[in-house]
Structure formats: C-alpha cells, structure tokens
C-alpha cells in the first residue's frame, strides 16, 4: 500500500525548502527525549528532505548561542552551552543555628578583641577547634587582626563589620557589659575579680577610635 502511494507523493510534492527543513530538524531535536539519528530525522520529515544538510545549517545557526546542536555518536541533539551550566543550578539556602562552641568563641572574640587563640582557649577553658575558627572566618564574622607583640607574635582575631551588621551593633563596645548581663539575669555569680570588662563605663571621647584599640579596655 505505502509502496503504491510513495512514488506518487514524490512526484506530487517537492521537498520543502532547506530553511523549512532546518526548522523541522530544530523542532524535532528540541522536542525529542533522546538524540535523533539522521536516518530517523529523514524518516520523520517529508519525503525528499535532507536532514544531514539541514543539520549543517542548524548547527551553524546555533553557534555561539545559549543552546548548541551537538553530535552524540551518530545522533544529534540540542544541549545548553556548557559555559552556561552555572545557570542550571539553584542555590537553596538553609539557615542553621550556630553551634555553642562557635557562639562562645565568637563572643570571646567580640568582647576581648584583638584576642589570640591561646587567650580564647584560656577564657573558654577548652581548646578551640580549627573548624570553629574556620567557620567564623568563612562567615566573615571574624578576621585576623594585628599580630600580638608577644613572643611568637601570635595572630589575633577581631570581629568584622559584617558581624556588627548582623547583630545590629554600631561598635563592638555597644555589646552589653558584664554588669548589664548580670542585671539582665544572664550572670549569676560574681566573676573572678579582674576579668570584668568595663564596657560602657569608659568616657565617650574614645568612641571614634578603632576597634583594635579596644584591647586596652579589657586588659586590666
């Protein structure tokens, strides 16, 4: 049956213009779930079409575009341009509470900056893991301050402007002092003498000084 019809078709209908064939290849490649062979393209397109030639044109048309016509084995497919792969990712932001160790370390840095790792450990009474410091550095809540002028010239940590921003502070000195913490019921016992930072009790004229100079405030 089909043998009877096809030769007739051939004489009746001329193959569509190549631009039209290119459109057809484009549509088939776009909608296909799998790469398509030239043979299959030809079988799906009207009689007399030359998919191989249409593909040459189509491939050229997509050069430099966001989508490319690529050869996969003996089949053809359309793919997004590899340099745009980053667009195919979607970032999911998940918010988690900072760990207790990280919060404590951060608090010590904020209250005692610039402070060395050894000093943090002394205050916390436990060693500070590398991961905790790295995490805080990565979050850009702390950064390295000036090295201490003590033997070994250890690095110090200070809080960043991102930290202040996050906690809605103008200045690290706006952090409530121990006196206020106690008034708020956060502190039960009297701390050992000499450890109490005198936040908020200093004259105001040094407000404008840089944060690094805060060390004096804490050192007694």
């Amino acid at each position: 049956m089909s043998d009877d019809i096809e030769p007739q078709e051939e004489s009746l209908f001329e193959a569509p213009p190549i631009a039209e064939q290119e459109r057809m290849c484009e549509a088939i490649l776009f909608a296909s779930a799998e790469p398509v062979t030239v043979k299959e393209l030809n079988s799906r397109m009207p009689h007399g079409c030359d998919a191989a030639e249409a593909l040459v044109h189509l491939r050229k048309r997509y050069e430099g575009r966001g989508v490319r016509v690529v050869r996969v084995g003996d089949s053809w497919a359309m793919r997004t341009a590899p340099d745009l792969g980053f667009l195919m990712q979607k970032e999911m932001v998940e918010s988690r509470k900072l760990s207790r160790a990280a919060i404590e370390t951060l608090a010590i840095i904020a209250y005692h900056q610039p402070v060395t790792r050894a000093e943090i450990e002394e205050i916390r009474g436990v060693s500070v893991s590398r991961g905790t410091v790295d995490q805080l550095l990565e979050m850009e809540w702390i950064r390295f301050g000036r090295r201490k002028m003590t033997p070994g010239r250890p690095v110090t940590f200070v809080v960043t402007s991102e930290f202040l921003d996050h906690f809605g502070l103008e200045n690290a000195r706006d952090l409530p002092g121990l006196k206020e913490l106690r008034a708020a019921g956060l502190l039960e016992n009297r701390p050992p003498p000499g450890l109490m930072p005198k936040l908020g009790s200093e004259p105001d004229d040094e407000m404008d000084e840089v944060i690094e100079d805060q060390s004096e405030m804490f050192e007694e």
Partner: protein
Amino acid sequence: MSEETGQSEFQLSVADRLVAEALIVDVDGFEGPLDLLLSLSRTQKVDLRTISILQLARQYLAFVEKAKQLRLELAADYLVMAAWLAFLKSRLLLPPDPSEEGPTGEELAAHLAFQLERLQAMRDAAAKLMARDRLGRDFFARGVPEDVTRIRRVTYSATLLDLMQGYARIRTRDDFRPFVLDRDSVYTMEEALERLRGMLGFSGQWTDINSYLPVGWENDPKKRRSATAATFAASLELVKEGKAEIRQSEVFAPIQVRKKDRNHV
C-alpha cells in the same frame, strides 16, 4: 392533555415529530432541561436572539408529554422546567394583569432566551478552545528538560542574645539559666548622662532634648521611650549639678536644655 389535542395544538410538522422522537430515545444524553431546550430550539432554525420562547415552551411540553406516554422517567429537573414553562406559556398568552406582581411573561421569556444564548455561546467557546493548537498535540515542550541542580548552601545564624548568653556562660562557668528580660531596649541614665555631658559642651544654644537621643534609638518606640526617659533624667541631673539649664514653654511643649555658661548667668 390528550395526544390528539396536543398534536393539533402544537401543530408539529412531521420533521419536528421525528426530532422529538429521536430526542426521547436519547433522553439520557441530555445535560439537563436547558440542554434539551437548546436542542429543541434548533428545530426553529433561527438565531437564538429571535427565538420564539412560546413555541419552544410548547415543544418542551410536548416532549415531556411524550416521555410520560412512553413511561420514561424524567428527572425532577425536567418536570420543574415543564411546570415553569407551562406557567410562562400562560403568561405569554394571556393579556397582562396589572394587579399581578413580579416580572412579566416577556421578561421571563427574555431571560430564558439569554440563558440559552449564553449556554450556546459557552459551547461554541469550548469548541474553539479545544480546537486550538495544544501542548503535547500540536506544539511541544523540551523533550529532555535539564533539571536544575539544587545546591544546598547553609547559612548559620545567631542572635545577639545567643552571643551574650554564650559569653555569660563562659564567665560564670555555670550552666546557663534561660532568661526573658530584654535589656536591648533599655538605655540607662548613666549612659544618657555620659552622652549628654559630652555633647552639651558644644551647645550654648537651647536645644530640644530629643536631639540628644543616641543614634539608633529614635525610631523603635520602646527604645525611644527608654532613651527619652534616661536623657530627661540625665538633663535634670546636669541641672542639679549646675552644669545645664532646662526649660519648657508650656505643658507638652518641647523640653530644651543648654549648657550653663558663666556668661549666661
């Protein structure tokens, strides 16, 4: 109403009768009385806007009558419509009674015509809609959609309270006791005093004490209240110390302070 009188009254043509019979056979195929009325209206071969509702009512009643004779069970809806159409028919045929309340026969007929036209319009619209090029039949989406890779990025958060509690915990070396009091929005008189002392030195002019509120405390009502009270108390303290003067022109007017200068005394 006998069959003969019905026939003669309705003067149905042979063609109409055939249609009516075909309809009866197909009674289950109708989607309610309105659908049946719409089908019957086609026998009039006129625009729905010029349809004769009276004629349609007769056709419908004939249909229902026929159905009864054939002992076909009609749903209640069809019978309700029949009763209503019989009523409509009488209204349309009898001269209007001025004492009668409610809409005229013409108004009722017009609304029925509207309903039929609207139903037909919706049918036509539905047909046009279904005849459109359709996704998955005439046009197609991408065959191998590339899934968007979801990258999970974790952000860590902590509040000022977390920070303070953390610090307090270390300082007390005690187990932390939860607390509720919020000291964030409390501005102490000591703080205000300090601020006022520093700033008043530069101002020999009368200045509204509100302008001495610390930065960041002006907007939040809670903070503003606390800061205003503390600043006011502090200004009184400075007056007591003989370092400032304070005035208020009338009740609720702005309170102003200025440095007490020897020259002003």
